[in-house]
């Protein structure tokens, strides 16, 4: 009730041009800020990014220096997350691993966004043969269960994080292409596009100035969620030995090697798993919030 009273007491100044006072962007930001989950996700991601940037300074130990005297020790004051099979400090490794996971997720998705949006836009905007061709090829990619596709690509390219990024990029391309195609299709027949055509704007002008900016919101949302998927997938590939090379402190690889010590030292695989979950959860929550703010009708 009190809020309703407040509304009734609004003064003249706000009512003058109430709808003219806030820009769309500000509205989105405020909608995003109001979303508690989104903010928690945002800060989780910010936290991880900070940790990644400051890794050399915040990590208490060298992530690859071995000390066989203290191998497989459980969490303690000096090693809060315990040590691994070479006596390396797991906390320090996780801190350094943040860089790798973030990079993989972001670069992988960036590749997918660039290729996917380009293909999807061409396909959606021009239609016809290009559309049929592109979509058929995407269908072929989609016919692979997604993880298998990434696996196949990495086994061709050989292990290593760069290749994992490429694999993740490629395997996400169809998703982005389809999404951007469908949003381009919904936009290209909008009257404002027609207005630009009527004033003599070229296709390139229309695509760059109107179509892409207006179809990018769902792409941003998908990207942030896809980064989450990418991080998990990369970890999965490393888990199968297709990713990072030792002694790189990649989380999936750490988890995979820790598996051999699951009984004697469960912390070795538990900790990196929690780290993956933390970062992925951050991106998912962020994406969720972005969706609510940018494109509430999107189904993801």
């Amino acid at each position: 009730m009190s809020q309703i009273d407040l509304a009734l007491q609004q003064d003249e100044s706000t009512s003058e041009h109430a709808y003219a006072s806030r820009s769309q962007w500000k509205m989105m930001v405020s909608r995003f800020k109001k979303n508690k989950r989104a903010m928690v996700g945002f800060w989780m991601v910010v936290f991880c990014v900070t940790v990644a940037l400051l890794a050399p300074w915040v990590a208490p130990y060298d992530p690859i220096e071995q000390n066989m005297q203290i191998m497989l020790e459980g969490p303690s004051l000096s090693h809060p997350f315990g040590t691994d099979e070479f006596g390396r400090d797991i906390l320090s490794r996780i801190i350094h691993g943040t860089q790798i996971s973030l990079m993989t997720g972001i670069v992988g998705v960036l590749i997918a966004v660039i290729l996917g949006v380009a293909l999807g836009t061409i396909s959606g905007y021009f239609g016809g043969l290009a559309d049929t061709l592109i979509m058929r090829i995407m269908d072929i990619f989609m016919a692979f269960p997604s993880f298998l596709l990434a696996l196949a690509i990495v086994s061709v390219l050989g292990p290593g994080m760069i290749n994992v990024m490429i694999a993740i990029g490629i395997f996400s391309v169809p998703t982005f292409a389809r999404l951007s195609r469908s949003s381009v299709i919904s936009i290209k027949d909008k009257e404002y596009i027609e207005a630009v055509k009527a004033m003599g704007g070229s296709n390139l002008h229309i695509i760059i100035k109107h179509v892409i900016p207006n179809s990018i919101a769902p792409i941003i949302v998908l990207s942030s969620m896809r980064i989450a998927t990418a991080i998990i997938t990369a970890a999965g590939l490393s888990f199968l030995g297709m990713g990072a090379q030792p002694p790189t402190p990649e989380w999936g690889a750490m988890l995979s090697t820790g598996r051999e010590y699951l009984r004697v030292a469960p912390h070795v695989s538990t900790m990196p798993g929690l780290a993956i979950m933390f970062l992925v959860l951050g991106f998912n929550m962020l994406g969720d919030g972005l969706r609510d703010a940018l494109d509430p009708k999107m189904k993801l």
Partner: protein
Amino acid sequence: MSMRQTPLVEIRNLKKYYPITKGLLKRTVNHVKAVDGLDFTIYKGETLGLVGESGCGKSTTGRTILQLLQPTEGEVIYEGKNLVGMKPRELRKLRKNMQMVFQDPYASLDPRLTVGEIIAEPMEIHRLYAGKEKDKRVDELLEVVGLSSYHAKRHPHEFSGGQRQRIGIARALALEPQLIVADEPVSALDVSIQSQVINLLQDLQGQFGLTYLFIAHDLSVVKHISDRIGVMYLGRMVELADKHDLYDTPLHPYTQALLSAVPVPDPLAKRERIVLQGDVPSPANPPQGCTFHPRCQACMEICKTQRPKWTEVDGRYVACHLYE
């Protein structure tokens, strides 16, 4: 009156068919004959109204005239030049002269741009003005449509429907066109706002000597604003006449029914109403002969097989076997 006799755009046998495709190979199995052979002329300085029921091809007509859609057949002759099949570069130059105002005040403005950017865009495309001059021109245009220069920095969603429609009009005016195709510019507006926009359009016509092709389904609005009115049914024009002639003595049975169906905002008026039976047939497979014949009260045998000719009767046009 002399001005009215100078043709600005001549439309000859204009057709627009949308293919209906099927299957994997997108074979064309049929066509939606959205516009199926129109012949008429728009004179300089006049307002030509276009009415008809939903789906009869009004918007398609407007868009094909502006070459936003490639006509299937026919000619659109603008000041002696046929726009159909013209080279894209040449066409782009001519586009300055013809602009469009849209129905949906929400969908016709790019939500990402500011109002100033929206109005400046046509000038940028045609490299008409730059820098300060451009800004000045944007302000001028805003004033012309009854907004203020401080609106230029705002985004479309901050405006009401009527205001957006004004922005759309300002954008259309930016290139100083001769012809404006207005596709249902007031249908989405509230009654009290609708009259503001209609008045604005009329004022601008006087001010800049504009020619309008005014599309609407509300007959009262069309009658109010137009000089001449064309009535469309299922992709074809059935009647074209001076508005007074049309309202006073409609010739085509469809025009008669249409006019009688409009509810009159006067509780005391008692009128004879012709209620048409059935719905408008699908333009994908229109009836043989006169497309209106299944719903027509004056249907004759010939109507079922022969397409009526577009004939001139006392300075007005009608397509009906009754008048051949």
